[in-house]
């Protein structure tokens, strides 16, 4: 292991206000410092990358023997210190040991198609390094609140928010009515047939028309030929119902003259 200072000496951690830049060669690290240092690693790939960089080596020349030794030493230390060790660190230790043993086997020329045992790990290290760098790049892009400040103005108190009305479904309306009816008392002694809904609607229309006109309206004006016979019947029943309920009155100045409808006037 060499002790050449790294190119980029970024502090690994800060301990009692002092930057921990490199781990001591003999791997002796005060227990709480190690804890801090280990927290700065984002996992086994990150720790491996650190070890490789420390040797000023290219990932592509992954020196599996020495790296494995160092890696295992770190992991053992973490275990000795009873740090909560993510399972991934142990999985990586096992993988490194496996690669190491394969590397030690003699190379069979006839099996030239066989992949280098380090290949998969090298790919993963490269990929991780790529995104580690991408994350660092992302961190320096100007961002709102740190480098970018957005400009705002307030509104005058006279600006009131627009109200969004709640949505309801048609079946809710029917269910609600069902609820009312379930609660309502029954009146068994009467029997009056139900009016068709269209009559009730027509009653509303007639009342509305009369209140908008502000005066008597010609009887004939309420009938539309397009509606056919049943339409005429509905309108007529609606008029009778309104007269019965004393909501409108019917006027005829002289026999055979125009019939007028008007709202029942208040006395």
């Amino acid at each position: 292991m060499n002790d050449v200072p790294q190119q980029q000496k970024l502090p690994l951690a800060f301990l009692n206000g002092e930057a921990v830049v490199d781990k001591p060669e003999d791997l002796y690290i005060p227990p709480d410092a190690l804890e801090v240092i280990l927290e700065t690693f984002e996992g086994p790939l990150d720790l491996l990358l650190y070890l490789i960089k420390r040797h000023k080596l290219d990932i592509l020349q992954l020196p599996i023997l020495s790296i494995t030794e160092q890696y295992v030493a770190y992991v053992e230390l973490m275990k000795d210190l009873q740090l909560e060790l993510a399972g991934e660190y142990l999985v990586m230790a096992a993988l490194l040991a496996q690669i190491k043993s394969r590397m030690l086997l003699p190379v069979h020329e006839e099996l030239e198609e066989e992949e280098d045992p380090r290949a998969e790990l090298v790919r993963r290290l490269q990929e991780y390094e790529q995104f580690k760098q991408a994350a660092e790049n992302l961190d320096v892009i100007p961002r709102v609140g740190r480098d970018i400040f957005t400009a705002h103005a307030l509104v005058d108190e006279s600006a009131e928010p627009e109200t969004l009305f709640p949505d309801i479904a048609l079946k809710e309306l029917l269910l609600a009515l069902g609820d009312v009816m379930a609660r309502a008392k029954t009146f068994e002694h009467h029997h009056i047939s139900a009016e068709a809904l269209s009559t009730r609607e027509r009653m509303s229309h007639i009342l509305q028309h009369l209140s908008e006109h502000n005066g008597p309206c010609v009887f004939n004006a309420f009938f539309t030929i397009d509606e056919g016979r049943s339409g005429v019947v509905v309108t007529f029943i609606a008029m009778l119902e309104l007269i019965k309920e004393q909501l409108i009155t019917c006027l005829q100045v002289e026999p055979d003259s125009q019939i007028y409808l008007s709202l029942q006037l208040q006395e």
Partner: protein
Amino acid sequence: MATRRISDEQLIELIEAAIFVADKPLSKKRLKETVLQDISVSNARIDQALDSISEHYQTRGIRLVEVATGFRFQACSSLSPWLSNLWQEKAPKYSRATLETLALIAYRQPITRGEIEQVRGVTVSSNIIKSLQEREWIKVVGYKEVPGKPALYATTKQFLDYFSLSGLNMLPKLPEQHSVKIDQMLNDPSVREPS
């Protein structure tokens, strides 16, 4: 501290930007303690800069205003009616009472409040009627010729539009016994309009 010098233009830019980005009104005191902390500038120059900013915005959609705790920018009040549309407030969901009232008005219009109360067996609050009127789903179509002349409510075209109905006859059919029951209740001589 207070060592850098800046031009009037730079001072205006800085104060303007500071008031715009601050999350609450900015007082001259806070301006000096924060944004201008390393800049050598007299109170008179700050006042001048503020005057200049204020004047500049006289012809824009926003104004520099001084409130109790400092300066802030505010949209012209004349624009409020349009700006209001930027915010939407969710009205609370309709209560069961509201739905029942609406259902009764839809199926039994024109109907008075007293009649609705008669069928529902409980008082119908004014708020319910008001909220349905605000939504333009119901309206008064007349007054019933009984003591107190209660208003008669009916559903509107907007109500039909909302539910994509071409007419009230397109409403889901009420079970026969329900219609009969409502009619019975409303025609019962014991039913009186509450005075």
